[in-house]
């Protein structure tokens, strides 16, 4: 099975993430990473999902069956920019700190918190680079770690402009409202 990166634009409504995830779960696949957030267009969210599966075309088609899904693509073979962020809390007693700081410089990582015996480091990069960074800092002692999961964007003019797929409407005043503030 091959790893696929899927980008989806969805209407921002309660339950939409659950529906998307449910479709993958139904087939017993495991989601390797999932990132969700606002797109450039109000009320449209953008999902990047990495899953290992073999009949990805069928899954994409079935995702389209979901009412709130506006656009889905498998961007695995497209030229993309892919990024992931990681926060790592390292065991960092005073004598080790200098070394950690210089190593962070190499990776363009930022130190965002310093505690008595700890440092929290933020690092952003391609998933491979993040992987690499984690390997390097492991020997210091990782107390906690959180990766955001991959976000992806196709390079150049082609891509997923949410406004193209969304429509404005008067909607309602409640939670299914579209232009609610």
């Amino acid at each position, binding site marked *: 099975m091959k790893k696929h990166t899927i980008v989806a634009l969805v209407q921002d409504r309660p339950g939409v993430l659950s529906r998307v995830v449910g479709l993958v779960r139904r087939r017993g696949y495991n989601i390797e990473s999932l990132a969700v957030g606002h797109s450039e267009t109000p009320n449209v969210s953008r999902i990047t999902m990495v899953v290992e599966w073999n009949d990805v075309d069928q899954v994409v*088609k079935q995702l389209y069956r979901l*009412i709130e899904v506006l656009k889905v693509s498998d961007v695995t073979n497209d030229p993309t920019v892919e990024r992931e962020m990681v926060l790592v809390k390292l065991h960092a007693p005073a004598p080790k700190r200098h070394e950690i700081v210089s190593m962070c410089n190499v990776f363009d990582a930022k130190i965002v918190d310093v505690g008595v015996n700890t440092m929290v480091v933020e690092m952003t990069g391609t998933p491979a680079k993040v992987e690499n960074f984690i390997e390097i800092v492991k020997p210091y002692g990782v107390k906690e770690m959180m990766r955001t999961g991959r976000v992806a964007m196709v390079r150049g003019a082609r891509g997923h402009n949410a406004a193209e797929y969304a429509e404005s409407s008067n909607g*309602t005043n409640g939670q299914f409202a579209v232009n609610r503030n």
Partner: protein
Amino acid sequence: MTQERTGAQIMCEALIREGVEVMFGIPGGAIMPFYFAMWEYRDQLRHVLCRHEQGAGHAAEGYARATGKLGVCIGTSGPGTTNLVTPIADAMMDSTPLLAITGQVSSLVLGKDAFQETDITGITMPITKHNYLVKDINDLPYVFKEAIHIATTGRPGPVLIDITKDAMQARTVPNWDVKLNLPGYKPTYNPNAKQIREAIKLIQSAKKPLIMSGNGVIMAGAIEELAAFAERLRVPVITTLHGIGSFPEDHPLNIGMPGMHGWVHVNRAIQECDVLFNIGGRFDDRVTGKASTFAPNAQVIHVDIDPSEIGKNVKVAVPIVGDAKLTLQAFLEAMPGREDMAELHGNASDWMEHIREMQAKHQGKQQYVSRADTEAMSLPPHDVYDIMNRMINERGDYRICTDVGQHQMWAAQLLDWYRPRTHITSGGAGTMGFAVPAALGVAVACPNETVWAVCGDGGFQMTNQEMATIVQEGITNVKVAVINNGYLGMVRQWQELFENKRYSGTPLTGPDFAKLAEAYGWKGITVEHTEDVEAAMREAYETDGPVLIDFRVEREVNVFPMVPQGKSIGDMITDASQA
């Protein structure tokens, strides 16, 4: 000027605005405000009180399948909604437009394990086309409009709206000026013209073409178009279980049903054909058998309104996304003249001759009784169907709901089907207990027709409580035929054929069904001999009221022909010795 309304009143008015006339349901705590409001609208919105929410759901499905209109069912929170899960799943599998309205606990206690709280939107997410949890009264006009639109358009399906009790009790001046906002939902109705031309070219070049017609043709109302299409091409037509009625069985081009209990000549024709034109069917595994061996020589043209069905189970040469009616119309317009089809007509006629020869060799409807000694049986099931077939067709104006099991397959095989929406069955989900409540819904929709529920003794005992609903509603046009073999027959058949007759969990007893019927206020008749079938049927027809006939058929008879599970449809068995 619009006045202030409660949420529950808005729900009623929303339904009336969308043309809903009948609802099937059961009240309870969380849905009580809706029942309170419903009383005011009772002249426009008929409520049928069922005995079990599963019955309400199947009744709504029966109503929808008989008419093509939306079926509506209602349940209260907790167990009232979980009882709706089976009919919702059934409607999902068979693309039935169904709206389930469920009461939810107040938004103030939502998520706190309140009395009768169940996360029904969570439970039904994978078995609905879409669902909603409404907590705000202001969402009601929009959500009802959108829900009904989704349930009834594109590929129809079940939609559930779960409404918190406080949203139903709140008051507001409803704003009916709502416009659908569904940028992600735009079903494709019009087929692509280029694909149509390509498909025509492929059909024209065929030597052994076949048309397969499914549920989509019936749902799109494309009966005349299909007939014109087949006649212009002169290509043989097969109708799937759900396609039954989309093309009359007495039409010279109709060759019958494919699949697990389809006819040998039909399945062989599929295996031999070089072009297979499937319209409105989804290549279910009960049709294809082992999919990798299905129609090995065929280039497949697949027309479906749901793009995710195309290429799912079978490799497709020409995919066409569209509504069956509009697609067939486009085909008829683009079709070349008769001269350009001379070759196809010649080929198709030779091919038909070949199929009819296979048919003559393999199919005699009465021939697939497993035992050679039918003579010795006092009531072989085939005799019941034979006589029923003659009598229902003599009288006309009938609908038949079948349950799930052997009796269902016999009904599909042994009765002759001529009209759409006359054969109503649970195909995709195979839900035992479907027939009696579905017949209730069909009877409400078609008060001037005779509605038969053909059940097994197993499935009948799952939902026969709706016989009381039928009486309470004053419905007189429902007749139930129990094909009573004292077994969960279809499972027993598999045990006999493939598990060395280990009848584990399949012998089945029941009450005296005729007496049970009498207790419900029905007429009950017991039939044990072939010679009494006709008189019983006649009595059922002549009785102005619901009638049940308990046909105590020979117990161990099998449905043949049959494709054993996981086998190619080319490998059918026609009697037990071949298993």
